[in-house]
């Protein structure tokens, strides 16, 4: 496969994943901003930080009103991570790698792009927001469904999966990073209304509010939430799950091409570290430190993949 094609697939799926994650952050932010106990301005500020676009936002806006924040996150093409920018990028990459995609996947991406362009043409009013967010989720699910249902399980699929998993790991880690203080045992007043709202937001940001409660019954503690987000191998957005997907797909590539590369050593080292840790050791060493070094590693693995498989010349 052309290195450029591998890169196009990887980034196409990273951007699709990003658009979905951004939409989910907006959804969680919108929800918590509506609850009376919270401070909406600081909520939107933390959403923008989690999305990694706060500097960009601050250059353009004063204050953190819901209207400005939502518009910046969904529509603004000056924001390279906005839903619209992400979908544009995903589709440009899809056009570039058109020959590697099944008709179903290509049409799903192209349809998503057409629908998003129409839905995000005008500013989204609060009344319309749930509908638009739902649409974003539906369309990214459509592409993912087409990917799983129609694509050959070869290197094309592997690079697509890598894009999804790297982006998703980054997203979950950043959600933990921005909210880590609410997960520290010292900061917890069990049962306090504020913490409940914060925890709920975190879980909603990763679409896991219900699954977490299903799995953990009434044990809603900072530690159990952190454990779930980092280590639960059943949860498809946990760091451990994403790391496993990266490991597996890099493994398929090594087998397929018959070559082991530096990225393989890096993911193996990360897997070993995760396996050797428990939530107790993480808290001992410091949650914040653990998460920031995970983000750094994940990023480095992504860059190494790009280099090892010649995405660019």
């Amino acid at each position: 496969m052309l290195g450029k094609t591998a890169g196009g697939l990887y980034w196409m799926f990273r951007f699709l994943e990003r658009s979905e994650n951004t939409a989910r952050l907006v959804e969680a932010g919108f929800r918590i901003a509506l609850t009376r106990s919270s401070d909406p301005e600081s909520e939107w500020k933390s959403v923008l930080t989690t999305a990694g676009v706060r500097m960009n936002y601050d250059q353009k806006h004063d204050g953190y009103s819901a209207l400005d924040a939502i518009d910046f996150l969904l529509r603004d093409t000056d924001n390279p991570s906005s839903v619209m920018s992400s979908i544009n990028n995903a589709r440009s990459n899809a056009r570039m790698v058109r020959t590697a995609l099944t008709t179903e996947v290509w049409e799903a991406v192209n349809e998503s792009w057409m629908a998003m362009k129409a839905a995000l043409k005008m500013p989204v009013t609060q009344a319309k927001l749930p509908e638009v967010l739902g649409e974003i989720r539906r369309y990214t699910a459509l592409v993912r469904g087409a990917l799983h249902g129609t694509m050959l399980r070869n290197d094309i699929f592997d690079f697509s999966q890598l894009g999804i998993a790297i982006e998703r790991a980054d997203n979950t880690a950043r959600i933990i990073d921005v909210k880590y203080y609410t997960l520290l045992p010292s900061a917890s007043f069990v049962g306090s209304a504020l913490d409940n709202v914060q925890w709920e937001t975190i879980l909603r940001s990763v679409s896991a509010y219900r699954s977490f409660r299903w799995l953990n019954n009434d044990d809603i503690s900072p530690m159990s939430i952190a454990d779930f987000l980092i280590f639960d191998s059943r949860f498809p957005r946990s760091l451990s799950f994403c790391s496993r997907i990266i490991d597996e797909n890099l493994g398929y590539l090594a087998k397929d091409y018959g070559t082991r590369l530096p990225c393989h050593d890096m993911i193996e080292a990360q897997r070993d570290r995760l396996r050797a840790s428990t939530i107790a050791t993480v808290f001992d060493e410091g949650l914040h430190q653990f998460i920031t070094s995970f983000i750094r590693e994940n990023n480095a693995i992504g860059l190494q993949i790009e280099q090892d498989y010649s995405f660019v010349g």
Partner: protein
Amino acid sequence: MNTDRQHFDEMLLGEDGVRAPYAEYQEWFSHEDVSRLSKKSKEAEAFFRRTGITFNVYGQAAAQERLIPFDLIPRIIANREWTKLSKGIEQRVRGVNAFLHDIYHRQEILRAGVVPVDLIAKNAAFLPQMMGVTPPGNVYTHIVGTDIVRTGEDDFFVLEDNARTPSGVSYMLENRETMLQMFPELFSQIKVQPVSDYPKNLRRSLAACAPAGCNGKPTVAILTPGIHNSAYFEHSFLADQMGVELVEGHDLRVVDGHIAMRTTEGYKTIDVLYRRVDDDYLDPLNFRPDSMLGVPGIMDVYRAGNITIANAPGTGIADDKAIYSYMPDIIEFYTGEKAILKNVQTFRCSEPDALKYVLDNLADLVVKEVHGSGGYGMLVGPAASKKELAAFAAKLRKSPANYIAQPTLSLSTVPIFTKKGLAPRHVDLRPFALVSPDGMNITPGGLTRVALKAGSLVVNSSQGGGTKDTWVLED
């Protein structure tokens, strides 16, 4: 324009009749419901949008991707007509290849005085770098899209030879696919020659032109300028259909005297490159140094015989509009036969007498830039205002050698489908010929372009033209 003039309509005859090739279609059409067809027409458009069959328009900031309108009434060519046409195209393409070989070798035709030396030597499309180079298989134009117009029952004219990188073949294929999906019953009733073999034939034909040193199955790739190119859809479509890689300049480099593409497993040699990048941009070391689209050093690899470039660099000298007027002589010079397909009468404005005639009769002529394409920079005299005529006359006087002029042809019409029923519109035809050492393959039919505006003669997609499926009937 000139709607009073009598145009030859390829379908309609008299009050209610149709010409012979359309008899069976008319039988089907007369039982169709207009509202059902309108619905089908809308479906086709949605289908094109969804599948991304679009082209990019230059010079329009926000527009970027547009659809080429598709008309659902097919253009039908009788078997007998096609036999003659394809013979004529084959002869012409043979002539073009012989001409190119000669021009880049001994230049007999210049010595014989058939074509003026200046026309070649001073022509920007002539590449001195190609002198003495024989392409693998001695094929210069692997793919040709000859533009043909019709003015009467038996009157076909070649309008342009398009020997560089003709586009439009993807529309020929998709139009048929769309028709098959919309009206499957039509194709069981009427025997139409298939076009779907084109990608397979193209791949075979290109592979047959691989360099002599290529061992095993040749690796073919398509070189595209990238996703912003107006014909990008076609490039990716053909790569997809042929099962070959679609590469850009930055994917390629010279490795051990060969052209190789950067893959996830290192560099891999390419034997045949179907390039959709113009000569000027092909090699920054040999042509435009600022080109980001090409491959530095590819011309050296080419001259060493280690890669096939399709079409060969320098083929533009054969489809230049100034050379065009000599084409009947060129064909006769190399084939010893009279040209089967006629040329349109052409005035070379570089000649003082011709220039005078053109200026005196500007309102009746079509004037084209010698190096122009896509319908840009051309004047359709009968449709132009007095002001436009005067402005164009000034341009002509300033650089006459830059223009040729032709009489306004009374192009044939084929009806398009409108809400109010059938309406005649002017059409042209671009059949596609594939050339390899094994012979020539011409896909029956080709791309029919149609001017959607009543009376308009401009069929270019960049200027409001549409397309039709083109049928060549089985016997």
